[in-house]
């Protein structure tokens, strides 16, 4: 039941992120220059119907008041999106940033970059880890020694400084697509050692299993043994590692983008959106700018909870009576 609830919650979050172009009331790059740092719009009720008032700048430019002389109903399925309001009204569920862009819309769109980076990096990391760990565990001896020492060397590198150095060598303007692949590639390449070590452990034990010895006795090649008997045994480790790595890598994307190493403007990611909240006055005056940080919490929590539940399930699973 817990597992189903967690999976349902994660599916809901992924669905929301995937459907960003439909769920978000505005495009991520759409600027409302009249409304920089507008606070989250307040919903009012006209009977049973949700409405918003027009927003007019008050003195100072960053302070707004509601023009209660006219109501604008919140409409469903408007302009090809799930909800919104008709012009000239505006509706910013989580407020706007310095350029008047809707934070809610940008959080949804930004989630796509952060989540996709996490997933792609995990795929890369697990792929490398699976290959490295399987070869080391299966062949053992000097192959194992060389591969594992190389892995340890990898772990010992001061990666953050290395990444900052790499960024310094890149051109100032890197396209969002290039940045995405670069980021996912770097995070995935950095993270493969731990899954490799875990896979190696499983393979070391699996290669001694009698059914592997039996297949070897029938003349099975190393490739056959790995493909048919050994790799399937790493499935549960790989699955659990995936649920641990995805949130870690999403967090890594957020951190690296926050430091300016990720996807650049105007494409949003949770990390580059948080960059704006670095300034003290933004943080104290426009707390909604922290929304991307809070938005990532349920997703990260969901994945970590899933990892716990999968581990619990593995430990409680009855061992086949063999």
């Amino acid at each position: 039941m817990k597992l189903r609830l967690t999976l349902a919650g994660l599916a809901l979050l992924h669905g929301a992120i995937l459907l960003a172009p439909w769920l978000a009331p505005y495009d991520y790059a759409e600027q409302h220059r009249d409304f920089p740092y507008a606070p989250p719009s307040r919903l009012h009720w006209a009977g049973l119907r949700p409405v918003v008032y027009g927003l007019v700048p008050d003195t100072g430019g960053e302070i707004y008041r509601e023009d209660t002389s006219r109501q604008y109903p919140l409409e469903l399925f408007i302009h090809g999106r799930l909800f919104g309001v008709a012009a000239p009204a505006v509706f910013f569920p989580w407020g706007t940033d310095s350029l008047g862009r809707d934070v809610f819309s940008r959080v949804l769109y930004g989630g796509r970059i952060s989540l996709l980076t996490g997933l792609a990096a995990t795929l890369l990391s697990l792929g490398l880890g699976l290959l490295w760990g399987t070869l080391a565990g299966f062949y053992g001896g000097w192959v194992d020694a060389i591969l594992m020492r190389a892995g340890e060397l990898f772990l010992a590198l001061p990666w953050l400084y290395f990444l900052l150095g790499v960024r310094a060598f890149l051109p100032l303007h890197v396209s969002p697509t290039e940045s995405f692949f670069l980021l996912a590639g770097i995070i995935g390449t950095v993270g493969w050692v731990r899954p490799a070590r875990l896979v190696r452990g499983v393979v070391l034990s699996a290669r001694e299993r009698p059914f592997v010895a039996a297949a070897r006795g029938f003349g099975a090649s190393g490739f056959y043994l790995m493909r048919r008997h050994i790799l399937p045994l790493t499935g549960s480790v790989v699955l659990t590692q995936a649920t641990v790595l995805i949130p870690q890598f999403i967090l890594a994307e957020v951190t690296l983008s926050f430091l300016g190493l990720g996807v650049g403007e105007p494409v949003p990611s949770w990390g580059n959106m948080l960059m704006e909240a670095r300034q003290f006055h933004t943080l104290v005056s426009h707390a909604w700018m922290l929304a991307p940080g809070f938005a990532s919490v349920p997703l990260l929590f969901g994945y970590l909870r899933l990892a716990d539940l999968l581990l619990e399930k593995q430990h409680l699973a009855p061992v086949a009576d063999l």
Partner: protein
Amino acid sequence: MLRVEHLCKSYAGRAVLTDISFHLAPGATLGLTGASGSGKTTLGRCLAGLERPTSGRVVFQGARVELQMIFQQPASSLNPHFTAAEIVEEPLVIAGSHPAAQRREEAAQALEATGIARTALHKFAHQFSGGERQRLAIARALVVRPKLLILDESFNGLDPEVAQQIAALLQDLRRSLGLAWILISHDLALIAGLADEIAVLERGRLVEHAPTAALLRTPREQATRELVDAARLLHPGAFPV
């Protein structure tokens, strides 16, 4: 058919088998016995090609696949994620010698030869009883039409009735297919009832090798005498005095 010449095996400098030599004729049956830790399983694995001898050699007159081993715990030699069909077909898949339909038919026939109905082909290993898993392991070995089977403590953990059925099955296979086998067991009484000749291992050395009746009647070595005495104590009346 099988010739073992001065076989030695050591792990990290520690000798486990020392200067083992014997031969086995086609269709013959040999019981390999000795106390725990005497090197029986290691010798079996060396004969099956699963361990490389440190020195000496094993000469088998036949294709590599015609020498098959049934493991100490046959059930654990069956992949729990495989169905009976996949388990029994596997040697043919590895050999790549038969089309899929023919493989399935060969597997069904091998299963039936061991007394399991072909309707069980879709079942997983854990859905079989202990004795049936034993038969499944034998069926898998039979599918490649072996000349020699090595059974390593394969009767352990089976109730007497099932053990008797498996023993009868082995005798049948010997008669019908001319199958030779080496039965590795610490249970001299079991071996004496099945094998034509017996070899006794002690601390990695082959101390005695003789026809079953002769070895039981006049054991020459101290280790053999102890085994015979123990067997007589546990199974009174089963041995000639």
